């Protein structure tokens, strides 16, 4: 059974419009407002306040709409990063999910391309190539005669 205090607290939070009341308590609130005259009066009071708030008029802002519409607007200029992204990944309708994912992959693509075309100033002949050449030389110079089996 809902008390008047609970009823008032719910009205304070959700207002007098029963459509905004929590569904779990709506029926109990409606019943209380119908069956209890004090609750009905409280609801009427909140309805009056909400009605006044809803119909409260604004001052007449003379010509404000036109002034905002005609105000000086700066040339729209996207930031450097946005312009780069717009060039690489044009903004199409429905691309809002793919665009950030593709943008996140860009460093990976750049890394692969850079890695493929650059040796990062490492002299290949003095490193890996040299190593393989040494290996081949060692194999060719090895004396296999020691392992020959005399028949």
């Amino acid at each position, binding site marked *: 059974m809902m008390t008047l205090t609970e009823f008032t607290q719910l009205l304070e939070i959700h*207002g007098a419009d029963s459509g905004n009341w929590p569904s779990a308590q709506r029926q109990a609130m409606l019943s209380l407002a119908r069956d209890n005259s004090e609750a009905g009066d409280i609801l009427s009071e909140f309805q009056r*306040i909400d009605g006044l708030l809803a119909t409260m008029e604004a001052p007449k802002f003379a010509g404000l709409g036109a002034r905002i519409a005609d105000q000086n607007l700066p040339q729209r200029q996207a930031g450097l990063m946005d312009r780069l992204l717009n060039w690489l990944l044009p903004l199409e309708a429905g691309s*809002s999910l793919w665009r950030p994912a593709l943008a996140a992959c860009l460093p990976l693509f750049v890394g692969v391309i850079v890695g493929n075309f650059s040796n990062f100033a490492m002299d290949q002949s003095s490193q890996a190539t040299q190593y393989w050449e040494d290996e081949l030389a060692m194999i060719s110079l090895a004396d296999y005669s020691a392992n020959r089996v005399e028949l």
Partner: protein
Amino acid sequence: MADDNGTQDEQWMEAVCRGDRRAYRALVDRHWKAISHYAFRLLGDVSEAEDISQETFLRLWKQAEKWQPGKARLSTWLHRITHNLCIDHLRKHSRMQAEADPGQFAEAETIDRRDHEDESRKELAGQLQQALAALPESQRSALMLCSHSGFSNQEAAAIMGISVKALESTLARARRNLRSSLSTEDSAA
């Protein structure tokens, strides 16, 4: 209808991202009244509310890409910008959390009074303006967003940058204070 507006807003925002000024004007035409009214209720000054409204739409133009249609309605995003600008403005002028001077709202009150025909309703509207002006800005903001602008509690919380629980607590205090102010004035009359 709301969905149609949302789709239209989305198309216009895409056009704004491409620098289309006609789309910008269409968005201004649709949203400026709600934005300027909200700014006025937070600041209590017509000329300051006008400046904040202009700044809000300038931000829309400059930062259109930042709006994410899947996350929030455009009106929610615009109210959030307005809310932040108003809070910054109030902080700058050391008016944050201070109860506004009801006299600040006098201009709106007289205009409202002129427009209303029913005498008792005029009186009630005047009392409401006074009571609303006496609330701290967070409570005024929560009430305006939920009871006047029709935002859900979740949307209002997002606009104010607080949790839904905190918003509900603020709303409860605001309605309690408003109810108490109005009933006091009723009994005094």
